């Protein structure tokens, strides 16, 4: 059977659209870290505002290592399952690394230097950068709105120095930046899978 020019064009279109629809479900890590930060911040706020418990920041010390372990295991597993390397995926890896290194630097050095006033807002600024870039690359608007929310809340926190307010604002920041958009991303991925 002869392969004609129209069929050639169809093959090209079909194959390119197949790689496009092969987008991974990225929502897991947004939801994991969204919930971890949300629960840690709310619990920290409760212990600080309503109890006399001295170690009120203990939720962070329990939940963050759990999150790191799950992320590392998930990363190793998804690397094993990765059958195709995309240009977007490769550039995202550089951005993720930059984001994590910055988070680690802040997490360790700011408390050591007693920079508590700027601690949570600096996280929110970093969250905003990450959300804005990933929203742009994935063409997913809810992350862009989440970024704007994080920038606004960070700005308010830099001016309004209150530990309780900072904890409530960071939980609001991850709710609007990670948790809600994370579920929306999951839903849109499921819709794409059903359609494909």
């Amino acid at each position, binding site marked *: 059977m002869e392969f004609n020019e129209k069929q050639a064009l169809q093959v090209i279109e079909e194959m390119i659209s197949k*790689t496009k629809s092969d987008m991974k479900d990225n929502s897991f890590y947004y939801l994991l870290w969204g919930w971890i930060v949300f629960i840690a911040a709310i619990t920290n706020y409760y212990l600080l505002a309503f109890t006399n418990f001295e170690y009120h920041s203990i939720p962070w010390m329990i939940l963050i290592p759990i999150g790191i372990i799950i992320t590392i295991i998930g990363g190793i597993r998804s690397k094993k399952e990765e059958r195709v390397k995309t240009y977007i*995926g490769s550039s995202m890896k550089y951005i993720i690394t930059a984001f994590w290194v910055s988070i680690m630097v802040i997490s360790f050095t700011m408390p050591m230097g007693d920079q508590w006033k700027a601690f949570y807002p600096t996280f929110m600024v970093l969250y905003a950068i990450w959300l804005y870039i990933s929203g742009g690359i994935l063409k997913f608007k809810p992350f862009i709105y989440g970024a704007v929310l994080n920038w606004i809340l960070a700005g308010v926190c830099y001016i309004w120095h209150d530990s309780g307010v900072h904890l409530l604002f960071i939980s609001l920041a991850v709710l609007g930046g990670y948790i809600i958009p994370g579920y929306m991303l999951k839903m849109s991925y499921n819709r794409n899978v059903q359609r494909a």
Partner: protein
Amino acid sequence: MFKELDPLLHSQLRLAVMSLLISVEEAEFTFIKEKTGATAGNLSVQIDKLKQAGYITVNKSFRDNYPLTQCKITKKGIKCFEIYVENLKSYLKPA
């Protein structure tokens, strides 16, 4: 006027492989097999032809004791694919 189409690319499966590889950085054999719906034997033969022509590179290794074949389009492959698409347009333009 109709321009000549690269005979190496003007074949359903080879063109499908090249179209997949042009949009990604690197892909495994199993991924290409799944997306093209080709048989492993036929796909191996066509991938080998593309490799011989210098259109793609094929890297064979092991992952968890299983053989792993990864394919990547070369600069020459990209150039030839672009020329093919350009020439294809001359056939599809209304006379």
